[in-house]
């Protein structure tokens, strides 16, 4: 059995993609299997970084002009028409989940997005993934090869690295593929502020109990003073009170801090998935029936503002 990992080396998130795939593979060891990695790239200077972070020693480097899904798919179709690979694994980002589905369609395989566990059997791939806005876990059997999956968020694990020096590298230049003539103008702007919620050790999470923009700004201030990052639940982000990259949950950041203080958060499953890997959760909420209370390690039932301001004083005076 052969599996192939597809990574987007054109992206600044390449290292993160590689880390999470390594995390996923080490949690889901299949035997016997042989792994390959296809890495798209557009910057010769980054090649070393791409190779040393590869999750497998067999690497195919594919040179392209930039990330463009229509072109990537065309290239993958050309490169992978030999039917040797049973399982394609894509990262959890936007590109990964898009490519996995569209590629499976083109290769007449089967696909599944946000998979958090797999078991490769002779004639099927057993996959687990969250459903019903993260309230339920479903188990699926994919039966049409190749199986194309994108992994769930949250597998990133810095500790694992291949530490190999023997890479088997094939290079191919595909810069001539152009399936993007439907684009008349193209402009990619980097985000103004990188938040890094995923790597934060200490998180302050705000939910819809935080009622105004001014109150969210106050939380930003408190967070930065006590050394925490501020993340928010969907209603707050939808209100554009903070940039969308501060959204926590299935459609935002999946965090794993050592400590999270959740204020005014109801604890809907789709949000909670974003802090589920947190080591210690403190909830401050007026509603003792809110599901976040049951999902916390310790909770205070009170107005979050009063409690947090008091806590802020205590932390400040102890520093």
């Amino acid at each position: 059995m052969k599996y192939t990992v597809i990574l987007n080396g054109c992206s600044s998130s390449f290292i993160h993609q590689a880390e999470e795939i390594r995390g996923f593979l080490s949690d889901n060891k299949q035997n016997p299997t042989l792994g390959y990695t296809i890495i798209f790239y557009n910057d010769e200077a980054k090649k070393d970084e791409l190779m040393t972070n590869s999750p497998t020693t067999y690497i195919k480097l594919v040179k392209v002009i930039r990330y463009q899904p229509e072109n990537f798919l065309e290239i993958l179709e050309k490169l992978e028409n030999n039917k040797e690979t049973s399982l394609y694994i894509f990262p959890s980002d936007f590109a990964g989940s898009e490519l996995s589905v569209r590629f499976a369609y083109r290769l007449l395989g089967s696909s599944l997005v946000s998979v958090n566990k797999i078991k490769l059997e002779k004639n099927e791939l057993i996959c687990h993934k969250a459903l019903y806005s993260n309230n339920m876990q479903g188990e699926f059997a994919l039966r049409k090869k190749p199986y194309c999956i994108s992994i769930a968020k949250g597998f990133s694990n810095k500790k694992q690295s291949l530490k190999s020096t023997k890479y088997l590298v094939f290079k191919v230049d595909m810069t001539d593929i152009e399936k993007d003539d439907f684009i008349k103008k193209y402009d990619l702007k980097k985000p103004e502020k990188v938040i890094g919620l995923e790597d934060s050790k200490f998180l302050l999470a705000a939910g819809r109990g935080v009622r105004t923009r001014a109150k969210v700004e106050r939380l930003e201030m408190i967070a930065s003073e006590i050394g925490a990052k501020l993340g928010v639940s969907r209603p707050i982000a939808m209100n554009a009170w903070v940039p969308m990259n501060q959204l926590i949950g299935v459609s935002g950041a999946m965090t794993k801090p050592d400590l999270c203080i959740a204020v005014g958060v109801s604890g809907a499953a789709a949000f909670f998935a974003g802090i589920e890997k947190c080591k210690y959760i403190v909830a401050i909420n007026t509603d003792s029936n809110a599901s976040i209370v049951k999902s916390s390690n310790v909770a205070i039932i009170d107005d979050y503002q009063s409690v947090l301001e008091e806590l802020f004083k205590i932390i400040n005076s102890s520093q």
Partner: protein
Amino acid sequence: MPLTREQIVEGLIEILESEKIITDEQVLKESSIDRFRKYEDINGVYTQPIPAAVVNVESTEEVSAVLKFANENTINVVPRTGRSATEGGLETALENSIVVDGSGMNKIIKIDTYNMQATAECGVSLEELENRLREQGYTTGHSPQSKPLAQMGGLVATRSIGQFSTLYGGIEDMLVGLEAVFPNGKISRIKNVPRRAAGPDIRHIIIGNEGALCYITEVTVKIFKYMPENNTFLGYTLDNMKTGFEILREVMVNGYKPSVARLYDPEDGAYHFSHFAEDKCVLIFMAEGPKAIAEATGKAIEDIVAKYDECKKVKTQYIKKWFNHLNWDPAKVAEERVEIMETQNLGFTTEVSGTWDIINDIYEVCIERIRNEIPDITLIGGHSSHSYINGTNMYFVYYYNLVDIKPEEEIAKYHYPIQDIIVEETLKAGGSMCHHHGVGKHRTHFIEEEYQSSYHMLEALKKSFDPKGIMNMGTILPIKSK
């Protein structure tokens, strides 16, 4: 010469520890209003006089000292606890008011399961008291939609009523005794007895005074056995409100006491019930209490409804689910604010009551007039949620899109005209303009018409208990221009 804001604060500092006196500007602004002006609040536009201070009192003696100071210096006082008011009762209508916040008086003093009564300070939240009681197998029987926010003092002060009122009654049926402070600082206790015929029932001077006569510091309410395992839910869809009112009447007149008896029209019901009752009226009952009673009540109601062909029974699970999500919690309040900003769509309610012979007419004429007379309406509907042997209430619910207005113009363009139609039509028919929210500050121009020849009694109460006019001026009675 009236005291300046600074002098008021200085005077308060002599009475209370300074950390109990709040003068933060944003807090003061937010304390000048309640949910009646939620649109101004969301936009950060405050049109009411900003209070001089908010004081967080922690004992009856502190309340007494603050009232005495205010009375001596003729400073308007607005009493408040859980801040869930919706009719302007918490607005500071006069310059340099003091808002006296009793939410810090939050001790449950005694739960007496032998005499079946519970005593709590004014700032105890109903939810907390109810949860404490339920742990021991008892309940207050009181469950207004504001339960997660409202506190005991405010509930009594506004003559609150809950969703189980058809069985347990309103707060006036539950209240045993209380402690209140009058403007001159006099602390008055009304003792806890089963009943007495020792003159007029003076509790009724205090229940529903909306902070315009005195400050309630402690209340004692009846408690009941809590037996949720016997709860029986019934739900029906039907075509006409008129039929629904007939059924409610028949249930009441025949002596049945379901705890919940509610009738929704299709517009109001759509929000809750569209998944099983599109374009239909919905009738809901819950019977509770000892098993035999709950069962018999449920069975009798089923028999009554069965006589009406237009009623179709729905699965009880629908009703249970709806019921578990009925209350306004802080999260829902916040969510509403987000959506108001985004969709520029705002909703309010007005609640009236009338006898069986007039209620359907009030309902029909109000809906018709609002539909035709008010611009930008997106929803006008209502429900009956509290029934009595002689009649029921009607709770009108309305939403409108805010078109071409500044935040401060919303009330005059939409809210007042709608409310006034409802009040006018109700008074014309012979009903009451306030069923359970209280008068607040925005229906006072109708108060004489509401009371008619008994209005002098109301005026006499105000003159007698608050002669200098310092208690929540503009509430219940309008401020008379001098």
